[in-house]
C-alpha cells in the first residue's frame, strides 16, 4: 500500500492508502506502485486515479508531484472529484483565456493564460468523458 495525499491551497482534497496511483505529469502519465523510486516532477492538468480504476478519479490542475517509496504527495492548484467540476466556470475561464491570449503582449502573460486555457480544457474534457 502507498499513501497518496492530494492537497490544494484551500485544503486537503484526498488522503488515502491505495494499491496504485496514476498521475498525469509534464512528460506523460506515471503509474506508481509501493516502493517506487524517488521522483519529483511537475503535475499537468488531468485525472489522478487509483487502483487502475478511472471512474473514481480526482481531477487536478498544475502543481508538483513528490514520489517516495512510501508516499505520493500531489500539490495541485485545484482538485475536484470529477462529478463536482463546475463546467460553467471552466467554460468561462476557457473563454476568458482565449480572449486574453489574443491580446497578450508579454511572454509571461501568454504563458499564464495558456496555463488557464489548458486547465479549463482538461476539466471540460473530463466532464465530457465521464458523463
Amino acid at each position: 500500500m502507498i499513501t497518496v495525499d492530494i492537497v490544494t491551497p484551500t485544503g486537503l482534497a484526498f488522503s488515502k492508502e491505495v494499491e496504485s496511483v496514476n498521475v498525469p505529469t509534464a512528460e506523460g502519465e506515471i503509474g506508481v506502485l509501493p516502493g517506487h523510486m524517488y521522483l519529483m516532477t511537475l503535475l499537468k492538468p488531468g485525472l489522478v486515479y487509483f487502483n487502475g480504476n478511472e471512474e473514481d478519479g480526482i481531477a487536478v490542475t498544475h502543481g508538483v508531484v513528490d514520489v517516495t517509496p512510501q508516499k505520493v504527495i500531489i500539490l495541485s492548484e485545484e482538485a475536484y472529484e470529477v462529478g463536482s467540476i463546475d463546467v460553467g466556470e471552466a467554460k468561462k475561464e476557457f473563454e476568458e483565456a482565449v480572449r486574453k491570449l489574443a491580446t497578450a503582449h508579454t511572454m509571461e502573460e501568454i504563458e499564464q493564460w495558456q496555463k488557464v486555457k489548458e486547465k479549463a480544457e482538461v476539466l471540460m474534457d473530463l466532464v465530457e468523458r465521464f458523463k
Partner: protein
Amino acid sequence: MPKLSPRDIRRKIQGIKNTRRITNAMKVVSAAKLRKAQEILYASRPYSDKLYELVKDLAAHIDRDAHPLFAEREEKSVDVILITADRGLAGAFNSNIIRTAENLISEKEEQGKRVNLLLVGRKGFNYFEKRGYTVVKGYDEVFRKEVRFDVAREVAEIIRERFIDEKTDAVYLINNEMITRANYKPIVRKFLPVDIPEAEYELAGSVYTFEVDEETFFNKILDLYLNYQLYRAMVESNAAEHFARMVAMDNATRNADELVKEWTMIFNKARQESITLELIDIVGAAEAMK
C-alpha cells in the same frame, strides 16, 4: 468633576448605551469574520505542511551551495517584512507588532546594518512611513475581503529579486500568529536565506530523478514555497486580527455595561438628593408657618 444635573446624567447614560451598542455589533461581526478566517487558516495548513515536506525532501538531495536562495552572507543590509492590519480598534494588535518590529530594527541598526522595510497592511505602513525609515514598498487594503494571494506573490518576488541581486543579505518576516485558538502573538522568522533543517532520516543511496530540468524545477518549488509562506503569514495575521478585535470589543462592551451601572447609581443618588432637598424645603416651610 462639576456637579451634573439628573438630566445631564441621563444623557450621559444614553450616550454610553449607544457606544455599547456599536461595540457589541462590532464584536459580533468580528466573531463571524474570525470564524471564516480560521476556516481559511486551517484549510491552508495541510498544503503548507506538505509543501514544507516536499521542500525538505528536495533539499536533502541537492547541493545547497549552488542555489542563490540558500546563500548565507554576512548581514550588511537587512530587509524586514512586517504584516499588520489595515484597521485599528483591535486592542494592542498593531502596536505590539510594531513595537516588535522597532526592536528588531534598532537591534540591527545598532550592529551597523542597513534596514529596509516592506510593509503589508495600512497600519504599519502609516506608522513607519512618517518616521523616516527606508520603505521599499507598502501595501494597503490587503485584508479587505479575503487575504490577497497576489500581494503575497508580489512581495515574495520583490524580496527574491533583492536577495539574488544582493541588495539585501537576510530577510525577516514579522507577523501575528494564532498560537492556540484563543491566543496570538508576534512572531519573528527568518525568511531568507531559506532555512531548512538537514533531513533527519538517512536516504541511503536514494537519488531523486526529475523528469524535468532540475534547476527550473527547483526554482519553481522554491518560488512556490516562499509565496505560500508569505501567504500563510498573512492568513495567520488576518485570523489573529479578527480575534484581537473581537476580544477588544468584548472588553469595551463589558466596560460600557459597568459604566452604565455606575452612572445609574450616580443618577439615582442625584435624584434622591433633589427629593430630599425638596422635602427639607417643604418641611422647613411648614415649620415656619406654625
